[in-house]
């Protein structure tokens, strides 16, 4: 299994990363940034699909919350009604998962490649030899030049700057996509997660090689940019974490999307369904009111 993983996914990513290092004037920092951008661009259609599915799911939230209130004491009925709602809206609740599952192996391979390519110890370097192609462009870069800006990429950042960057970018990205909850319990849980995850990753940064933290920062920034253009703004980042009555909420500024960025048919349908549902229930809690 490991052999198969190495041959099909890990080694192509690893060797591409090292080859990029040679191309980019023997600078592994640039190679990490470049490969993260390339992978993000290649996976962009999947990311878009995932984001739109999530958005469509979120647009059903008002109706779902109503159902939760209505059938709070009957879980079986709640499940039935929830599924019915999804069916009527034409949404597969697992629809936002599969694009993520497809992307996951690539991200894991990229993650592994950065860690392995840095070869911080003699054992790591020796281990690297078993995963390299016999390309001259790869051989030229090994062992990699680990200096980038103020960082030694195989060592943690001594100046905490990277930890702060990882924490802040992750928080922004997460805040943009996390819908404020009305239920106090759920709200507290959401707030905790939104804060804890960036903090946790900032902590990891203090002990992990800074090359990996660089990848997290770049990946988060690209994620923020994609999110910004897909949702047409800063999403929930500019929203208060506690929902106020609908009349006091201001609409989120929206951006005009290009043809390529137009929502998919599923998302459009879900959005329309959501509007109908909102109209029916007399509420205006949806965030993407395009």
């Amino acid at each position, binding site marked *: 299994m490991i052999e198969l993983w190495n041959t099909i996914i890990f080694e192509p990513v690893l060797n591409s990363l090292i080859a990029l290092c040679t191309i980019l004037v023997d600078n592994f920092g640039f190679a990490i940034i470049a490969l993260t951008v390339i992978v993000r661009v290649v996976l962009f259609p999947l990311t878009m699909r995932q984001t739109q599915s999530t958005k469509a799911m979120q647009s059903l939230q008002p109706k779902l919350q109503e159902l939760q209130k209505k059938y709070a004491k009957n879980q079986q009925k709640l499940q039935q009604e929830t599924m019915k709602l999804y069916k009527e809206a034409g949404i597969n609740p697992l629809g936002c998962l599969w694009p993520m599952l497809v992307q996951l192996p690539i991200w*894991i391979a990229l993650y*592994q490649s950065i860690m392995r390519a840095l070869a*911080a*110890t*003699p*054992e790591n370097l020796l281990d690297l030899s078993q995963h390299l192609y016999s390309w001259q462009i790869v051989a030229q870069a090994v062992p990699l030049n680990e200096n980038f800006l103020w960082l030694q990429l195989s060592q943690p950042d001594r100046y905490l700057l990277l930890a702060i960057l990882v924490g802040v970018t992750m928080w922004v990205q997460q805040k943009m996509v996390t819908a404020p909850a009305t239920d106090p319990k759920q709200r507290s849980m959401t707030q905790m997660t939104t804060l804890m995850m960036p903090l946790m990753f900032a902590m990891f940064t203090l002990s992990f090689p800074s090359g990996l933290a660089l990848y*997290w920062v770049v990946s988060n920034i690209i994620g923020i940019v994609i999110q910004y253009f897909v949702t047409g703004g800063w999403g929930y980042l500019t929203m208060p974490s506690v929902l106020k009555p609908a009349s006091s909420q201001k609409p989120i500024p929206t951006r005009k999307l290009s043809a390529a960025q137009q929502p998919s048919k599923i998302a459009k349908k879900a959005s329309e369904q959501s509007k109908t549902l909102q109209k029916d229930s007399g509420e205006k809690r949806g965030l993407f009111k395009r």
Partner: protein
Amino acid sequence: MLPLAALSLVAFSCVAPSGGGGCGGPAPQGWSGFASYNGTLYFGSMDGRVFAFDPSARSRGVTFPGEGEWVFAIEAPAAPGSMCGPLGCAPASVAVNIYSTPAAADNLVYVGTYYVKGGGAEGKVLAMSPSARGEGRVFPVRKENEWVYPHDKYGAVGAIVGDLALDESTIYIGSSDGKVYALDTIYGDLKWEFETGDKIWTSPAVKDGIVYVGNYEGKLYALSSQDGSLRWEIELPTSIASSPVVSGDSVFFGTFDNYLYAIDSASGKEKWRFKGGNWFWANPVVKDGVVYAGCLDHRIYALDARAGIELWQFVADAPIVSTPVLTGNLLIAVSKSGEMYVLEANGGALERTVSIGSSVMAPLYAEENMVYVHARNRCVCGVDVQSGEKVWELCYSDID
């Protein structure tokens, strides 16, 4: 993408290729070989200790430590006070690893260390007196000429991975900080240092007043052993993977583009190069006009030292990491999987194989018919190459 990043982190740990040591791959452990002096063998263990053992006492099955045998735990220089972070405080002491094979002369045993401290890898050079270590006295005993370089308690050089090279009254060290240090063997004082500009993870070689050393910038330097002045330098297309070995008027070494080079020791001009299927990581061994080179492509090559023409090759079951040895007309090599091959040096015919029982990365050492192996299961053993019998084994994990 946050869930992706978090999931990646967890999943990474699960699918990471085997080798242990967490998400970054194998953790540093070391792979010291053996040095012999006055009938005693010295090696650095994978837990940062220096062992002195008498091979004959091991053969007789005497409980360790027998007479003249000892073990000394090297302590990395502790930072002043413990290091505190958001998750609590960690002790100031750090684990020491020993990659370099000790050197021994004039009643002193020299060891280079490797330890990770404050986000970087550092090292020190220690000179130990066998008698003071045998008596368990507090290190360093000045009267016994023991010393540590740098002399400053909190000082350090870059981590030492290559072996130490001894020549008369000087010891030469290549360091991860990119410098070559020449130290006085008796007092440990710095005679000279030379900045190469990039990491040195291989050993220097000394011959006829010249120190040869390669760095990870792909440069090979020839320095005067007297004052460290540059005689010549060459730049190769890729970095240097194995330590240079000087024989006759040639310097032999492997590079990361899978070549084994022969360079003229006087001018630095390339004589020939031979392409293998992977890195020549193990140091080549040269005798009677033949270069024996173990390669990570699982092969052992025998090449004509003058022309670089292949004389024979032997295919092993796994990469050859550990430097082979010659004893009599036999070439002994061990693969990473722990399979030892006893080959005829002349034609490469396989005489016998011996299973060591664990992975081997440390260089082999031979004395007469015995070959000594330091395996990854934290055991050392003596193998009689004539009979193919593992005569004794000493596992040091249980030794205090």
